[in-house]
């Protein structure tokens, strides 16, 4: 296993940010860490680099015990933080050069590593542009390239596409998918369901510091939301009626904006379908699982 976390607990005074997390990631696979803001995803990431110290539990990254051997683990890891902490006074190339040094890329390989990372980030033409002059998407690509300049074996991506345009997100997805194809192990936290569905081999859903579900996206769908959903529209009374009928038949529902989605629609009896009337059928997705597991209300 590239990563083994057992019973990790992290407390800040009265708050338990991580409450007994177990995680496993096989070499060369991508685990999507899903969860709402405040679920404990970023703290879990910091535990893996030794920048947060677990109060309980054990962590092993690439065979190294963390925090005791975190330096050895960090030498083989690449970290892409959620917050852009690039040095804005430096050019794209200079940012990469600095991190090639910090990650101890041998002197003879440094220039090639920086050129490779610039190409990876599609910033060859902007290599000598100051970072503050780059667009948000370019900066995010540079941030990812900075974490990959030493060709790590294990990459932590903390919300890699948060706040980006759909086009830029697509570009980054291709980049991350390329890592997986190359055999790099990836742990990616996200609250974009589509991102996890597209990129992750397995998904772990976190809520209130715990992993409350884990597995392949398709398995999670089968277990919690079924294969299809039917959305019913109407006034509030109508939506309440749909929810009541579905629940009475043992089918889960979730609110999706102005509609109610009845999940596991493939199990719906013809009689119930008649009662519920006309709806819009769609495939169930990880968002349905996510909302079912973490609740409909934002805390």
């Amino acid at each position: 296993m590239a990563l083994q976390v057992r019973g990790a607990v992290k407390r800040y005074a009265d708050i338990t940010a991580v409450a007994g997390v177990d995680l496993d990631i096989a070499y060369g696979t991508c685990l999507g860490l899903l969860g709402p803001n405040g679920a404990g995803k970023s703290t879990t990431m910091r535990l893996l680099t030794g920048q947060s110290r677990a109060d309980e539990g054990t962590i092993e990254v690439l065979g190294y015990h963390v925090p005791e051997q975190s330096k050895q683990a960090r030498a083989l890891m690449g970290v892409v933080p959620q917050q852009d902490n690039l040095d804005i006074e430096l050019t794209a190339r200079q940012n990469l050069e600095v991190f090639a040094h910090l990650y101890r890329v041998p002197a003879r390989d440094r220039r090639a590593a920086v050129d490779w990372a610039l190409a990876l980030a599609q910033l060859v033409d902007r290599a000598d542009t100051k970072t503050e002059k780059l667009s948000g998407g370019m900066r995010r690509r540079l941030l990812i390239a900075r974490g990959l300049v030493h060709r790590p074996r294990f990459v932590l991506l903390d919300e890699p596409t948060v706040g980006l345009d759909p086009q830029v997100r697509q570009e980054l997805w291709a980049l991350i998918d390329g890592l997986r194809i190359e055999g790099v192990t990836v742990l990616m936290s996200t609250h974009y369901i589509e991102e996890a569905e597209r990129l992750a081999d397995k998904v772990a859903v976190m809520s209130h510091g715990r992993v409350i579900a884990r597995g392949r996206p398709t398995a999670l769908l089968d277990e919690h939301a079924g294969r299809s959903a039917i959305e019913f529209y109407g006034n509030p009374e109508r939506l309440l009626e749909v929810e009541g009928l579905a629940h009475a038949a043992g089918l889960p529902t979730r609110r999706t904006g102005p509609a109610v989605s009845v999940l596991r629609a493939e199990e719906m009896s013809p009689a119930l379908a008649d009662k519920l009337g006309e709806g819009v059928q769609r495939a169930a997705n990880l968002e349905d699982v996510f909302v079912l597991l973490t609740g409909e209300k934002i805390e």
Partner: protein
Amino acid sequence: MTETRISLAQPMTRVRWLELSAMTGVWKHETTLFRRYWRSTTFSSVVEPTIYLLAFGFGFGSLVSVVNGYRYIEFLGTGVVATAVLFSSAFAGMFVTFIRRVYQKSYDAVLATPVDVHELVAAESTWIASKAGVYGCAPLLVATAFGLDPSWGMLLVPLIGFLTGLGFALFGIWASAVVPSIDSFNYIISGVLTPLFLVAGTFFPIEGLPEWARALAQVNPLFHCVQLVRHAAFGLQPLDDLYHAGALALFAALMGFLAERKMRSRLID
């Protein structure tokens, strides 16, 4: 993914408590940045002592010609070295470190690489101290233009500036981790640094001060710096100078211990 000849990251074969590779990474960051701002730093490092020398030299110099056996330009030119070292080390330690840690989050990025907190603190403080050692020479050069006679002993001044700057850089780093906000530095500047540089024998001799102030000067690192610089310029006094250098080394060691502990508590939770 693009075609590449770059090999995968390799496991560390040997891990030491303090690694040069970790420190050179941090120094690379600093030297890359320094290429951008060296002009403004050099400007202020040269202009500031020039102003002090002109203001105090023409002001006090017209009233007193000899202080403690030195011509006033000799007394002042060597004393202002300590002020230049203090400003270039303590302020960098305080402001730059605070901004990098709190606003830019640069240190979070550095600590995600194979660099530990003590290596980060050691690298940052030695970099600042190196600059302080170099820029501490600026007042001597300016004073030479105003009539200070050069001497071979002055070649030791960069080392004295480095040792003093190391202590004050670490003091600044510690202070940056103690204060709740950047505004709080006002308390440190007014309450600690200003008294330190006034009661160090920089502009006037401490012999004229009350006894308690003279006693306090013995625990003022800047006083020891001033004494060492004067002895380097006008004649070493080995036993005294060992004492002064020891005091500066002790100050740096104490501040290093405090800075590392406080930075660790701020950066590793």
